[in-house]
């Protein structure tokens, strides 16, 4: 499934772009309206960009009354990104939503991203709604896999990985910060290895579906995130330069997957882990065979020692069970 990254597309300003996605993710909605930070709010860097938008949004009430009904008219499945400053605020917004998937933006200003506080927010939201809950995590924590385990235990249905990391850029002449807030969130190609590492670590730690994002610009980038463990892929910064990216990435992804012997991109889920886990020569040969002939040659999980992933989800990674998987779940 191909999504946009929260904050990187306004479906009402660009409905055609939103319709080219499998679902539209809103900009983070906070309880109160926010104008966002003072300009300058964006700056290009060598292999990425910095933003200090500051969660500009109309606030929960206006979002529910005005924005959401108009978004529904687009006919695209909706994910609402929910933000706040405390668990109760997140939960209140969740309780007011219907018929959407919820993405909890746990990297809001003032929100502590320690595993316990992330879990507290997810637990509060879990108690407030039965809607699917994705926890969006920053990679800038000591151990993102630990946070992933904590939010899984607290009832999250999925993970969104990753949010931006902090960066600074200076004006070449004045040597002063180019952003109004000085420091901002780094996104784009520079974030891609960071995203891969986070998806990799979380795939090994939990058995939740994962929306992978961070610097995806091509089908190959998307396939790598899937190989690291993502079930869905989201496009962010690339949309700014290329509003046609969804159709292009989808096309490229299908071709890149087929070129490597996967009938569907989802069949490549987790293959990056195959090599790392194969302890004995026998399973290594089987993995190689699987990679060579594609997923139509299922490994016997008993035989190779791989556990079958728990998949109760509608996600396209369901076919991934045929790929050897690392020792999965909690240690």
């Amino acid at each position, binding site marked *: 499934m191909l999504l946009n990254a929260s904050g990187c597309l306004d479906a009402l*300003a*660009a409905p055609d772009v939103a319709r080219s996605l499998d679902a539209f993710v809103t900009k983070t909605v906070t309880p109160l309206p926010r104008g966002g930070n003072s300009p300058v709010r964006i700056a290009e860097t060598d292999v990425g960009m910095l933003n200090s938008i500051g969660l500009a949004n109309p606030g929960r009430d206006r979002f529910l009354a005005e924005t959401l009904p108009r978004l529904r008219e687009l006919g695209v499945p909706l994910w609402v990104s929910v933000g706040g400053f405390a668990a109760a605020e997140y939960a209140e917004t969740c309780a007011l939503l219907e018929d959407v998937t919820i993405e909890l933006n746990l990297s809001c200003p003032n929100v502590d991203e320690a595993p316990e506080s992330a879990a507290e927010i997810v637990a509060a939201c879990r108690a407030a709604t039965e809607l699917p809950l994705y926890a969006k995590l920053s990679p800038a924590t000591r151990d993102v896999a630990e946070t992933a385990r904590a939010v899984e235990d607290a009832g999250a249905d999925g993970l969104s990985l990753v949010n931006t990391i902090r960066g600074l850029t200076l004006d070449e002449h004045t040597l002063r910060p180019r952003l109004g807030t000085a420091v901002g969130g780094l996104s784009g190609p520079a974030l891609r290895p960071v995203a891969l590492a986070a998806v990799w670590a979380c795939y090994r730690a939990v058995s939740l579906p994962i929306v992978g994002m961070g610097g995806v610009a091509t089908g190959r980038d998307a396939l790598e995130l899937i190989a690291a463990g993502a079930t869905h892929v989201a496009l962010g910064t690339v949309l700014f330069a290329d509003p046609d990216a969804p159709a292009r990435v989808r096309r490229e992804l299908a071709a890149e997957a087929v070129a490597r012997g996967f009938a569907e991109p989802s069949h490549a889920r987790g293959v990056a882990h195959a090599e790392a886990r194969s302890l004995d020569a026998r399973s290594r040969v089987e993995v190689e065979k699987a990679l060579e002939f594609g997923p139509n040659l299922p490994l016997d999980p008993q035989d190779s020692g791989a556990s079958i992933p728990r998949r109760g989800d509608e996600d396209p990674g369901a076919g991934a069970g045929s790929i050897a998987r690392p020792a999965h779940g909690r240690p």
Partner: protein
Amino acid sequence: MVTRRAALSVVGVEPVGPYTLLRVRRGGLEPGRPGQFFMLEAPGRLLPRPMSLCLAPPGELAFLVDPIGPGTRALCALGPGDHLRVLGPLGNGFDLDVERPLLVGGGIGIAPLPYLSQALGGPPAILGFRSPRHAEAAALLPRAEVVVEPTYVTEAMPLDRDVLACGPEPMLEAVRRLVPDAQLAWEAPMACGYGACYGCAVEIDGELRRLCVEGPVLAAARS
């Protein structure tokens, strides 16, 4: 108005004083209204750069580019036959329903004025520049009175006209103080140009709003 993105081929790259007039084949893109802009892929850069349409020769789109940084320098380094992706036209242009138009421009801010001048049948213009070399760009439009620093356009401007202006922020603010109903074309750093990033927010009607959606041309009272 249809906004499209297409790979367009460069037909000409001509120096105009310190600026460069970049002419590309129009492809399937419409030129739009004067004051609207396009996002131009800057070779080797992650983000495209906003550029006002300067002229719309038959079958072409022409942009006047001031090479001030990596993106604009890359655009000026293009050569005939090169391709670049262009998205547009974007934003809201000038309201052409004016009785006694006067075009006011400063520096690279004159970029949208040649096309605007054509649409309005060649009204008078007052253009301010940093140096006589920069002032060579005044040849792009007819009936232009030129002032060079330390003289400012606001010192030479009649006040009983419908002013349509584009230029650096201090100039636009000075124009707004003198002519409260002027139409002003503003600038802000833009990542997308089509409302996706919220990076271009400026204060409009007392709130932070997206300049690429509400502008770049705003009535002075709103800005």
